[in-house]
């Protein structure tokens, strides 16, 4: 079920039993452990899941359609602000407001994507323009008094489940987990669909894809809008969880794009598990480094980032498959004697 990009492997019978078993175990852990976890651990896990979700959304565009967009904070921020405003000004419940916000982000993505993909912008330049677009939006929101400008907006700290506000962290955990699971499901569906197949063709070679009857512009735009929509939902989650939104963070590269991007590239783009593994590895690495005696708090994140930066350099130069690709590689080596190829 979880295909990785190289080839079309489905896991051998033996492996399926193991992976189903592992899945059930992790489901049990995921459901029951939070009740026993400390507040600190829970917050850390929620934040990790949030980044995992962002990585999965970003993966749709980069991993499957091969488009490098560095401005996803655009959609995160638009949706986050939209749902917050709807809530604070019109008492619209963020469960609905979140979807409206994400829809707004998706609608914004349509003309933006149309301009981007109509022009011959590729790779590097696409990345720059999307980054610029995000910075422009950041500047606009920073100067927009109605939404609090650079001071930001606070959400109330109260227990109002119908308004997506909880004083306990547990509900946020389950919602974040649910979002990640939905993205897993969505990614699998896309991977198996015509859209998914066409997207990877576009990613691999646009000319060949065109010659095979694939309308590259159309596919890129669709994946762009999908990615925008789901990233937008995360923006609302952030607002409801952190209770404070400000342009610097909502439209911030370091907050919305950097870690998810690293997670996707390191974990293995264009796979279902890659973004999850890659992003979780970062959190795990952080926690490990935190235990190192002489490292101070902020130094831990700096050290983790530093290592990830090095990994990004190595991966982009040497090995594009990331951790998932590495695992595939080992599996192939060990199954060489099965004589299937």
């Amino acid at each position: 079920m979880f295909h990785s990009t190289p080839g079309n492997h489905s896991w051998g019978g033996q492996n399926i039993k193991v992976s189903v078993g592992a899945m059930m175990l992790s489901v049990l852990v995921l459901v029951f452990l939070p009740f026993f976890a400390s507040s600190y651990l829970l917050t850390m896990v929620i934040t990790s899941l949030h980044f995992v979700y962002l990585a999965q959304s970003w993966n749709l565009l980069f991993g499957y359609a091969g488009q490098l967009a560095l401005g996803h904070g655009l959609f995160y921020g638009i949706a986050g602000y939209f749902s917050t405003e709807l809530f604070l000004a019109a008492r619209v419940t963020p469960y609905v407001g979140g979807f409206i916000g994400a829809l707004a982000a998706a609608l914004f993505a349509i003309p933006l994507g149309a301009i981007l993909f109509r022009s011959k912008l590729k790779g590097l330049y696409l990345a720059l323009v999307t980054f610029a677009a995000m910075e422009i939006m950041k500047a606009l929101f920073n100067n927009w008094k109605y939404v609090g400008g650079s001071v930001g907006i606070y959400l109330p700290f109260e227990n109002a489940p119908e308004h997506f506000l909880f004083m306990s962290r547990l509900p946020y955990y389950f919602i974040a987990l649910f979002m990640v699971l939905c993205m897993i499901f969505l990614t699998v569906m896309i991977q198996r669909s015509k859209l998914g197949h066409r997207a990877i063709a576009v990613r691999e070679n646009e000319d060949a894809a065109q010659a095979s009857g694939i309308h590259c512009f159309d596919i890129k735009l669709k994946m762009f809008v999908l990615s925008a929509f789901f990233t937008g939902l995360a923006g609302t989650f952030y607002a409801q969880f952190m209770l404070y939104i400000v342009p610097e963070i909502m439209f911030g590269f370091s907050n919305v794009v950097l870690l998810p991007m690293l997670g996707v590239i390191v974990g293995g783009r264009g796979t279902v598990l890659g973004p999850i593994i890659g992003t979780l590895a970062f959190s795990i690495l952080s926690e490990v480094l935190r235990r190192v005696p002489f490292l101070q708090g902020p130094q831990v994140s700096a050290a983790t980032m530093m290592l990830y930066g090095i990994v990004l350099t190595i991966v982009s130069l040497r090995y594009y498959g990331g951790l998932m690709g590495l695992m595939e590689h080992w599996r192939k080596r060990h199954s060489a004697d099965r004589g299937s190829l």
Partner: protein
Amino acid sequence: MLLKIDNVSKKFGGLQALRGVDLCVEEGKIAGLIGPNGSGKTTLFNLITGFHKPDTGSIHFQNEEITQLSAHQICAKGIARTFQIAKPFEDLSVFKTVTIGALLRSKTVRQAEEKGEKLLYDLRLEDKREKLGRSLTVVERKRLELARALASEPRLLLLDEVIAGLNPIEVDEISEILRGLVKLGITILMIEHVMRAIVSLTERVTVLNTGAKIAEGDPKDLLQDPVVIEAYIGRE
């Protein structure tokens, strides 16, 4: 006439790649397009398949004008092509590649996969099924190009140098496949440098030189034609 090209010209920057070329391809035949390097053959293919638009002239396919259509639309109309320098999907397997090619005429991915399987078998690629695009030899890439083009179930197949680089056994294999395709109702227009293949496969050949058509007709006759010979020798 399945394909009708009228007075087509194309300029790139300062270079006139094609000037006033006319060409007709009859249905159910294999036609050849030859000429020295740089004579505009691949450019003509690019114009037919919508990768570029001609500056003048028109192209009709099955009596429908396709001049201004984009590449993917032309593929949908029933024209498929291979590229001179093969463009494989590096990270995808042979099977995945052919499946993608078959998506155009399939309702579901499953259906496309079934068509892909059959195609791999027919083209004797099934043992390379899981090989990644990046690990294919040049010969295998060309075979895959052909498979991917056929996957879209074309009426007209444009082949850009599928024979070059093959050993005699492989040439015979491909020739057999191509003749088989014609029996199935597919028309072929092939660019080729290997004259032996041109003579044995095609019934009618068009010769280009520096962007213009200089001769047309039976390949055996044309290869004796002094004008044609001069074009090649003058260039080499």
